[in-house]
């Protein structure tokens, strides 16, 4: 009989091998899915994973991969801290929106003034917007024990409504011929989030994402707080006896992930998206959950996972144009990836053993 036997120590080999295996399995299963849809599976998988990097237009796609990857990495790094400690912020999409709104509003308030201080102020406001939005589930959990999963998710829908409200209302472009949406922040020099090196896709959001990866790595390996986060996730009772204050951890983890998601929203709205509009958010906050897990909740892993998911986002776009695949198929694809990852994870913590039925 096949049985699972718990490993004394999680396998390091499997912890690294599972993401790769999951990607391969997703390609196979995804190919099968596309075959079912009547598309050539090999071509579809090639379009999604290969073309963005090595096709004729790869010079453009490569920078697009980075543009998609930055917000995913930035959000996922924040989420991973909480996920490690068993604090589930799944409303990053809402924090992303609120960061974009508050940061964007600060920029619009200065319009048409010019000044070096405007963009930094917007960045602060963006982080603050995400932070405040994440503080709602954090405070409700620490004060009343309310489930942060449900509250943070409900707040996504509230944020979407606020976004719609401001796009039609107070932040609407007065010269926009009545169309919903704010002024274009990318055209307004003081608030534009330009490429730091022209044409590379490395904008300020990219710099922030790389910085976040490094800081998170330092935090988790070198700082007492990182140790406490890891301890709370792996041995909650030991953490409590060790004097870790769980409430403080909830506030910190949700706060950091909220602020980072808000930053991602601000960099998106001032850069690639350009303006606040009712549908400027495209679900990065949810995709980032997959990135966090695929990256093993480790900053460097998240960097790689973010680039990979950025690749699939771009590849999905190409497949949509060239093969007529529905845009949503890439979402199903990403969901599958998480499934396979979680499924393969069993080998990290358990060992598969044959055992003869024992006579009792």
């Amino acid at each position, binding site marked *: 009989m096949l049985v699972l036997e718990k490993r004394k120590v999680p396998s390091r080999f499997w912890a690294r091998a599972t993401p790769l295996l999951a990607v391969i399995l997703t390609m196979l299963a995804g190919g099968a899915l596309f075959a079912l849809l009547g598309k050539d599976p090999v071509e579809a998988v090639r379009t999604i994973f290969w073309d963005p990097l090595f096709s004729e237009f790869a010079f453009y796609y490569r920078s697009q991969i980075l543009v998609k990857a930055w917000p995913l990495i930035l959000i996922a790094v924040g989420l991973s801290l909480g996920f490690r400690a068993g604090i589930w912020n799944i409303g990053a999409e809402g924090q992303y929106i609120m960061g974009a709104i508050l940061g964007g509003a600060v920029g619009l308030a200065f319009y048409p003034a010019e000044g070096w201080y405007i963009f930094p102020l917007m960045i602060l406001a963006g982080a603050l917007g995400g932070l405040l939005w994440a503080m709602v589930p954090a405070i409700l959990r620490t004060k009343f024990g309310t489930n942060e999963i449900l509250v943070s998710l*409900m707040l996504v829908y509230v944020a979407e409504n606020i976004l719609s409200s401001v796009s039609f209302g107070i932040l609407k472009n007065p010269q926009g011929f009545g169309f919903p949406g704010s002024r274009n922040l990318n055209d307004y020099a003081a608030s534009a989030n330009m490429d730091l090196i022209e044409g590379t896709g490395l904008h300020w959001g990219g710099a922030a994402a790389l910085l976040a990866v490094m800081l998170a790595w330092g935090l988790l390996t070198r700082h007492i707080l990182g140790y406490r986060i890891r301890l709370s996730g792996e041995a909650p009772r030991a953490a409590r006896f060790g004097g870790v204050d769980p409430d403080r951890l909830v506030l910190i983890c949700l706060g950091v992930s909220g602020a980072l998601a808000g930053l991602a929203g601000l960099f998106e709205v001032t850069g690639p998206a350009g303006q606040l509009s009712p549908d400027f958010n495209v679900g990065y906050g949810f995709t980032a959950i997959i990135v966090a897990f695929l990256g093993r909740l480790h900053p460097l892993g998240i960097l790689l996972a973010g680039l990979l998911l950025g690749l699939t986002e771009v590849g999905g776009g190409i497949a949509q144009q060239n093969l007529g695949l529905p845009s949503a198929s890439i979402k199903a694809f990403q969901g*599958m990836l998480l*499934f396979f990852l979680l499924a393969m994870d069993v080998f990290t913590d358990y060992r598969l053993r044959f055992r003869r039925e024992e006579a009792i």
Partner: protein
Amino acid sequence: MDYSAIDPALLLATLMISATPILLAAIGELVVEKAGVLNLGVEGMMITGAICGFAIAVESGNPFLGLIAAALAGAALSLVFAFLTQILLSNQVATGLALTLFGLGLSSLIGKPYAGIKPPASPRLDIPLLSDIPVLGPILFRHDPMVYVSLALVAAVWFFLKYTRAGLILRAVGENHDAAHALGYKVVRIRFLAIMFGGACAGLGGAYLSLIRVPQWTEGMTAGAGWIALALVVFASWRPWRVLLGAYLFGGITVLQLNLQAAGLAIPVEYLSMSPYIVTILVLVYISARKGRGNLDAPASLGRTFHATH
């Protein structure tokens, strides 16, 4: 502004309809959680049920077949969750999230050709005599059959959990899976069945949305209904009749805000649209604050991984 357009009797009647999808999903999730499993994939199963039911109903011209297909689709999707969490011992929170993300993607993939189509009309069941009672008749007894099915389901779940041996075993598994295992109960098998029941209910709830309540297919149409169903189970303290109460309260708020939107209340539409979500948060806060920390009503093994060592 014209409040006279709001007819209280009609309001109450539509309340039952708007509550039915979340009631179906929530009563299913209640059974799952009673068995000690937290499936956060309700939203994904609901929306998959919504599109599968819609597609089958359109293709066959029979809404009843659509509902059956939706229940099967929801159960099939929940089987993935069951396999991952029960056999491969994956984290339930993460797996549930994956289920929701996958379901949202899959549904819009399947649903692409079905946008903007009208589904076949579902027959209304006017209960003879009772439906002719003034006022009460139109409110309570002139609905489609699924409204009564959902009510019957609440009663059945209540009876099952409270008065049957199988229900007792299911609760035992949810309270302490190690003890239940030691007594010889098949923890994994029981949880598989509970998860599939939950999946079928969620699928049915989704199909009710796309086939009867709206009736139309639009991408992401569940708009958090699955998450609200999850919140309802907490609100109800894991008790079937309170799920009914919660669903109808929630349905009432939804219908009321829609009516106020239609009546042109001076509050912007967006603020009315967000009210159901805010109310859900407030209710969750109220429930958790009243109980203090540590939910005493939650099944003790909820969300914990079961690994039999012998």
